[in-house]
């Protein structure tokens, strides 16, 4: 199975370990993984700011880099959702369509395509699971608290295979952290307050780590935790599933 690794721009630049963990995980499960080196960004920062009409160049670059693979996998719910909903290429609409349909967020790729049944990972810590909105409500990685519908959670399904881990309960199971792309600076006051409240919920329930599928949310919460000089750390799910802390 030929898999292309799609690494969101801020993960590439600031959290290379998350990308490495993703790569290693996919390799462990027998995927033939490549990293198309001329990839840049999915275009979401522009689109969510109202400049979707400027994303044509980004889209074309994305299609050029990611055509010809069986699957495209990224350690991010948000970027994947953007590709799935908004990737277009006038020059090659067929390829763009194929890419939209074969781009996966890492967790659902592990549960739905690779159908992972066991993991060789141990993480002896209390961990709070942050449900990133785009992964949750966009990609339906878990049941959403607003609906009257059966419970399920793909991240929890995998975390339950990790040895010695303790998943804590939260007061608000899927409230937004307030990152929101450019919202985090354009609406700084509300963004920060949302982040502080989200982090407080994890701390109150004695989390040692906050994990999630989107590094952007975690980066925002990490910024707040560090400013508060908290000992609570953030860690991407890929890092836990790949064996835990190095």
């Amino acid at each position, binding site marked *: 199975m030929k898999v292309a690794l799609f690494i969101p721009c801020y993960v590439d630049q600031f959290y290379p370990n998350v990308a490495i963990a993703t*790569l290693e995980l996919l390799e462990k499960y027998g995927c033939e993984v490549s990293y198309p080196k001329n990839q840049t960004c999915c275009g979401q920062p522009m689109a969510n700011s109202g400049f979707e009409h400027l994303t044509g160049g980004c889209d074309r670059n994305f299609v050029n880099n990611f055509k010809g693979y069986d699957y495209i996998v990224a350690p991010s719910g948000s970027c994947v959702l953007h590709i799935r909903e908004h990737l277009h290429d006038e020059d090659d609409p067929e390829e763009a369509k194929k890419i939209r349909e074969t781009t996966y967020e890492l967790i659902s790729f592990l549960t739905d395509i690779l159908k992972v049944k066991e993991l060789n990972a141990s993480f002896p810590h209390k961990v709070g699971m942050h449900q990133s909105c785009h992964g949750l*409500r966009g990609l339906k990685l878990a049941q959403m608290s607003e609906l009257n519908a059966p419970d399920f959670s793909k991240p929890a399904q995998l975390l339950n295979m990790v040895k010695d881990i303790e998943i804590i309960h939260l007061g608000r199971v899927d409230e937004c952290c307030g990152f929101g792309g450019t919202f985090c600076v354009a609406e700084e*006051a509300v963004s920060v307050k949302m982040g502080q409240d989200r982090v407080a919920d994890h701390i109150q329930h004695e989390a040692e780590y906050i994990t999630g599928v989107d590094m952007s949310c975690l980066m925002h919460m*990490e910024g707040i935790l560090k400013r508060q000089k908290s000992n609570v750390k953030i860690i991407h799910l890929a890092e836990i599933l790949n064996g835990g802390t190095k």
Partner: protein
Amino acid sequence: MKVADHAERSRIFNKDVDRVDWHDETLWFVRGKRDKTIHQIPEWEELRNTASQIKAHTLSNLHYYLQEFEKNATANGVTVHWAKDGAAHNQIVLEILKKNKINQMVKSKSMLTEECHLNHFLEENEVEVIDSDLGERILQLAKDTPSHIVLPCIHMKKEEIGELFHEHLGTPAGNADPQFLTAAARESLRNTFLNFKAALTGVNFAIAETGEIVVATNEGNADMGVHLADVHIASMGIEKLIPQRKHLGVFLRILTRSATGQPITTYSSHFKKPGAGKEMHIILVDNGRTRQLGRADFRNSLKCIRCGACMNTCPVYRRSGGHSYHNVIAGPIGSILAPNLDMKEHADLPFASTLCGSCSNVCPVKIDIHDQLYKWRQVIVKEGYVDPAKKVAMEVMAKALASPTLYRLAGKAARTTLKYAPFVVNNKFNAWYLHREMPEVPKSSFGEWYQKNRKNND
């Protein structure tokens, strides 16, 4: 004068952390009550689907149902009026009052008359208006405006209301007991109900098949006002229609459960014809609704039944307060309705969201609120209602992200300064850093690591 935008108003609101926490927790409590009650209805999601489809059908055939409604209401002895906008609506109300030589009117729950600024207009024309909903009455005394469509004075604490009542209604200073204050308001309103000759109500649902209107209240004030007055005026947006009486049950089941977690309001009052010797008027108001109906991407916003669930669940609304939206209807639904009324004035509102999507999930008529917020952003930028500096920054970013070479250069710079990272672009000052630390800077990007460690791949 430029109105302060949502971000600026929110910044001020957030200076009082205790109040923000209180506001957030109060509304989250209401969301919790909603969750609890909807889990007692196994067919909840089916009800939402049904309601959404009934509304979609009605909106697609609005011309037909409006005429059917007019015909049936007229046959019932009701006078039906058509108002193009808020000004026309207000003029119709004034004329009805003048014709009947009435200069005092009692009003119950109507966001539409807020939208039309009716109170102000009538006061200028020497008509006294008394709001009879407790929340609206409090705001009227405080010369304030609603911050929420169902819980209009949710931004006020009971101590503040105690003080207000002490000043205006003569209640003892320092008494903030809700039950006592409610009794005081009830007593002062009693005279109004007995003496005022005209009553205006809003409309929750209008049934085309029968020409009747339905008003949902908890306080019974709509009934009290209407039954004691000689003239009943009901003001409704044209989107309030439902085709048949049998559809009403679907909406009454979802409305209050979504709003407050109650199974139903205390009163669901049906008004069909005037009492003997009395008059009943219904004003059908457009005020931009047909324009919204013509916008394919935003048409669904007219399905709204004004339950306020999207406000209670919105993490931004809870932490910024209703007044930060500088619009009669606040929160997520307000942010998709307001740009239709005045795009320039409300250009900031679709951006006052993280697009988390919780609003769309609680919406009982399944309006795709967060998708519409995204779509409004595109429209607002294209129409030019955007900061020119932001536009330039976005153009630069689009260029850099379309070119792998430029991206790698920018990425290197970003890792040392964060300045050009997408999430902080377009900011003169680094707002990230006010209350957050920067990520630790790694030695190399993943791309660079990969070149060194996976040389066999390309």
